[in-house]
C-alpha cells in the first residue's frame, strides 16, 4: 500500500484551493484598500468598532459561564444513571441540536415578544407587559439555549468515565459534597470542560443571527458587522475582512488558552 498515500493528492489540492487560498484572501483583503495597495487603515478603522467587539466577547463569556453552570450538574446526573437510560437521556439532549438554530431562535422570538406567550402569561396575573426581547439578556438567552447541548455532551462524555468506585472511595475517606466536587469530579472533568467552553464560546462570539433576531438591532455583535460588510448595505469586504481577521485571532487565542489544538480526532 505504499503508493496509496498518493490518494490524498486530490484532497491536498482541495485544501489548498478551498481552505488556504480563501483564508489568505481574508488576510489580503484586510491589508489592502480597494485599489489593491497595502494599507493598515482597515485594521485602524477597527478601533471604531471596539465597543461592538467588546460586547461580543462579554456576551459570549457570560453565555459560556451560564452554560457551564447549568450543564455541569446536568451532565453529572446523567452520567450516574444506568447505561441504557443514559443513552436515551443523551439522545434527548441531541434532538434539539439537530433542529435548525434559526428555528430554535425563532421559537424564543415568539415567546419573548411584547405580545408573546410569556407576556400573555404575566398579563393573566396582572403583570407586565415586560420588555423581554431586543435587549442584551435576550441575546445571551438565545446563545445559552442554542449552545447548551455543546456543553452538556463533552462534559457527559468525560464524566461517564468517572468510576462510581472513585466517588465512593472519596466519600469513604471523609470527603463532603463540596470537596467531592472540588477535589474529585471537577479535576476529572477538566478535558470536557475545556472542550465545552470552546464549543460554546466560538459560535457565540461569532453569531449574527441570534443577535439580529433577539437583539433587535440594538445589540449588534461583531458577526452582524462582518455580515453587513459582505452582504448588507455597507458593502466593504476590506473592512469586513479586517473584522474577520480580528475575530479569528480572538478564537485562536481562546483555543490556545484551553489547549484545543493538535488532537487528530478532537472533533466529534
Amino acid at each position: 500500500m505504499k503508493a496509496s498515500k498518493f490518494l490524498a493528492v486530490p484532497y491536498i489540492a482541495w485544501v489548498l484551493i478551498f481552505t488556504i487560498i480563501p483564508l489568505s484572501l481574508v488576510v489580503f483583503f484586510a491589508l489592502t484598500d480597494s485599489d489593491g495597495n497595502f494599507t493598515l487603515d482597515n485594521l485602524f478603522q477597527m478601533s471604531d468598532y471596539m465597543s461592538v467587539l467588546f460586547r461580543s466577547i462579554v456576551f459570549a463569556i457570560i453565555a459560556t459561564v451560564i452554560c457551564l453552570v447549568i450543564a455541569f450538574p446536568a451532565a453529572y446526573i446523567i452520567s450516574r444513571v444506568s447505561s441504557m437510560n443514559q443513552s436515551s437521556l443523551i439522545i434527548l439532549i441531541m434532538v434539539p441540536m439537530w433542529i435548525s438554530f434559526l428555528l430554535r431562535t425563532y421559537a424564543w422570538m415568539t415567546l419573548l415578544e411584547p405580545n408573546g406567550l410569556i407576556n400573555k402569561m404575566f398579563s393573566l396575573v396582572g403583570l407586565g407587559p415586560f420588555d423581554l426581547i431586543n435587549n442584551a439578556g435576550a441575546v445571551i438567552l438565545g446563545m445559552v439555549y442554542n449552545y447548551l447541548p455543546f456543553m452538556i455532551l463533552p462534559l457527559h462524555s468525560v464524566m461517564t468515565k468517572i468510576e462510581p468506585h472513585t466517588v465512593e472511595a472519596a466519600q469513604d475517606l471523609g470527603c463532603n459534597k463540596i470537596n467531592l466536587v472540588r477535589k474529585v469530579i471537577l479535576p476529572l472533568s477538566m478535558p470536557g470542560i475545556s472542550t465545552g467552553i470552546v464549543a460554546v464560546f466560538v459560535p457565540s462570539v461569532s453569531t449574527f443571527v441570534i443577535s439580529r433576531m433577539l437583539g433587535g438591532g440594538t445589540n449588534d455583535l461583531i458577526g452582524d458587522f462582518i455580515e453587513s460588510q459582505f452582504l448588507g448595505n455597507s458593502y466593504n469586504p476590506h473592512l469586513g475582512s479586517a473584522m474577520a481577521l480580528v475575530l479569528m485571532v480572538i478564537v485562536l487565542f481562546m483555543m490556545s488558552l484551553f489547549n484545543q489544538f493538535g488532537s487528530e480526532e478532537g472533533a466529534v
Partner: protein
Amino acid sequence: MTKMRFSSKLYLYAVYAFLYIPIFVLIVFSFNQSKSRANWTGFTFDWYIKLFQNETIMTSLMNTIIVAVAASVFSTILGTMAAIGIYNMRKTSRTILMNLTYIPVISPEIIMGVSLMLLFRYLVDRSGFEFGFVSLILAHISFDVPYVIYNVLPKLRTMNPNLVEAAMDLGCDSKMAFFKVVVPEIMPGIFSGFLMAMTYSIDDFIVSYFTAGENIETLSITIDSMTRRKVSPEINALSAIIFVVIAIVLIGKNFLQNRKLRHDRALARAAVHH
C-alpha cells in the same frame, strides 16, 4: 449506578423543559387558526397545507436535497481517498495535513463563509464562474470532507494490516485487495461519514448564506428570510415536521441499539448457562 435522587430528577426535568418547551410551543401554534403566536383561536391544519403549496419553500427544499446529496457523495469519495492516503503517510506530513483538516472544523462558520465568498467573487470577476449550485456544493464539500476523514481514519487504524498482505498472497492484485478487503473493512466509517456530511449539509445556514448568491435559496436561507418577515405560521408547521422526523430518526436509532444491546446480553447470559 444508584437510583436518582428527587432533587437530581427535578433538576434534569428543568433542563429538559428549558430545551423542549420553546419547540413545543412552536409546534402547538402550528395548529392555531389565527396568525397569533400567543392567542389560541382554534385548531386547523391550514398551515401545513399552505406549507406544501408554498412554492418557494418546496423549491428550496429541493435545492437543499440536491446540494446535500451532491456534496456528501463527493466528499465521501474525496474524504475516503484522503483518509487512506493520510493513513499511509509519514508522521510529519500526516500531522500537517490533519491540522489543515482541522481548520474548517474549528473556525467560526462566518469566517468560512466570507473567505469562500471572497474566493468565488474573485472567480466571478476573472472568469465565467457564477454563484449558484456550483459555489454552494463546493462550499459544502469543504466543510463536509473533514467529517468523512474523521470517521474513516479510525476504521483504518483498527484494521488488521496483515489482511491486505494475506489477500495479495492469495492472488489479489493491489487494486482487487483494495476493493475486496480494505473497502469492506472501512465501510461502516465511510457510511457514518457520509451520513454526517449529509446532516451537516442539510443543517447548514451560515456558509450557504454567504456562498449561494442571489439566485438560489436553500431551505435554511428561506427560513431565515421568513423569520425576517416576523409572522409566518408556515414556519411553525415546518418546524413541527422537522422535529418529528429528527426525533423519530434519533430515538428509533437509539431504540434499535438498545434492543441489540439487550439481545447481545441475553445471548451472553445464555452462553454462560450452557
